[in-house]
């Protein structure tokens, strides 16, 4: 068993953000979590990465309960499950290569990382990963000088630098224009297909989920209300996830990516 989520909850004051969530993942996959804002998707990913503590339950990765880890063990787990954020969370004033090298923070001596002392081999690997994502020529620029789509690819490169078993992507395309959204989602899918890494991505819309995921979990008010294959996402399921408002459910099914015309694909890097 790769990942086992058992009865995981997170309570913030009077609000239950994640309510006894349970599911299992027996082999590496591309999992999408969909739902409205506030459904608990982000809180769940932050629980897995340990950015937030759980109020109860277990998350087992290869049998080990990651919610029980402390100190250095917890940081080692964090470096194994890379996180990608909606706002990229790069260090804006540092160069792209440094930002990618931050994926190694847990694996190199604290002193060396404090003074940005990286070996040539590490720098070479960072450049290779950037090259794979098509942005190697930006390596010496400041992160803040890049476009949103490029910054998100730097964040993916940092995640790959961690050589993670799982990549958690929290609304990775919510701040991006349609073309960049497609580049980022294609990159994530390719990483799953080529490296066999598990990707769990929070997505706003049904359509992105249908297009990229092997399995989709629908959340509403902190609970799982759907868990199945993307082709099982019917209109009735959409209403269940997004609420009774027909109009809203329909709007949620169309994604920003749909806005691309067929011819636009030629503009994308191969």
């Amino acid at each position, binding site marked *: 068993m790769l990942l086992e989520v058992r009865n995981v909850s997170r309570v913030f004051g009077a609000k239950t953000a994640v309510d006894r969530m349970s599911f299992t993942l027996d082999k590496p996959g591309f999992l999408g979590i969909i739902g409205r804002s506030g459904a608990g998707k982000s809180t769940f990913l932050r629980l897995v990465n340990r950015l937030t503590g759980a109020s109860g339950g277990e998350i087992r990765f290869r049998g080990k309960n990651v919610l029980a880890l402390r100190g250095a063990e917890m940081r080692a787990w964090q470096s194994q499950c890379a*996180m990608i954020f909606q706002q990229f*969370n790069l260090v804006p004033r540092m160069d792209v290569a440094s930002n990618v090298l931050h994926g190694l*923070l*847990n694996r190199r001596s*604290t002193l060396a990382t*404090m003074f940005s002392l990286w070996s040539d081999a590490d720098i070479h690997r960072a450049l290779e990963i950037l090259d794979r994502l098509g942005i190697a020529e930006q390596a010496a620029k400041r992160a803040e000088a890049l476009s949103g789509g490029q910054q998100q690819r730097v964040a993916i490169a940092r995640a790959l630098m961690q050589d993670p078993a799982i990549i958690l992507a929290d609304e990775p395309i919510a701040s991006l224009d349609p073309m960049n959204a497609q580049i980022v989602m294609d990159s994530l899918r390719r990483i799953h297909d080529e490296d066999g890494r598990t990707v769990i991505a929070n997505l706003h819309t049904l359509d992105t989920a249908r297009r990229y995921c092997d399995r989709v979990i629908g959340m509403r008010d902190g609970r799982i209300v759907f868990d199945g294959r993307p082709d099982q996402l019917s209109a009735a399921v959409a209403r269940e996830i997004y609420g009774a408002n027909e109009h809203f459910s329909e709007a949620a099914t169309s994604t920003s990516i749909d806005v691309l015309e067929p011819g636009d694909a030629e503009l994308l890097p191969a």
Partner: protein
Amino acid sequence: MSLPQDEIDHYKRNLPRAFAAPLSLRLRRGTLALGFAALVAWCLYAFGFSPERIWNGLGRLGRVLGFMFPPHIWTDPEDIADIAKGLGETLAMAFLGTLLGALVAFPLSFLGAKNINRFTPLRFGVRRGFDVIRALETLIVALVFIRAFGLGPLAGVLAIAVGEVGVLAKLFAEAIENTAEKPQEGVVAAGGSRPQAIRIGLMPQIWPVLLSITLYNFESNVRTGTILGIVGAGGIGFLLSDRIGAYRWGEAWSIIFLIIILVYVIDWLSARIRARFIGKWEGVR
């Protein structure tokens, strides 16, 4: 297009506040305005602001200003060396005082920042400490230090350094509190420890602000340093007060001009340094 009177009356009844403030509020405002005017009048009376005195004073001021032109130019090499030494001393006092103050303030500021030091009693204590230091005017500290360390620049440097600790630690702490959380979150999510998150996620955000604050305070301390000289803590201020005391206004004005030029040059220089570090500079590593 005028409204019928009964409609206006209707609104006046239902929304009286939209037409005029209530009587109690208008009375309170009136009383406050009267009280303020009385206070100003009393101050003018108590300090003897009579048109006659102002007029006579302006006449004498005109004579003093008359010594500005033509500016006095020193020809005796000994005089020139004295003035240059005084200016250099003031500059050096400001430089060393600001640097020492910044070096002490930097670590302290982390203890005073809410997002770093989450232990409220300690943070509160440290913050009040900054306040106490700031409450002591640098000039007063200098007078005390002159007694302790003797006349001369050492007392001035220490006075500036102590004052700067209070000011810079507060401003640095606020710069630290004004940083974005997200870069630090990114570092932690990648397996970084808290020291790494602070060093890598936070510090790059505060460097330019710290640099800018410190450069400005250096410039401000050149001016403060002049005043410290007047009370005997070394530098150009001593020469200035000496010339004024001896009614050598021509020389006094020339010293004042030199101080203005010095401050201007420092301002220009710090603008260049700021631009270099805050602008498009990409040599981050």
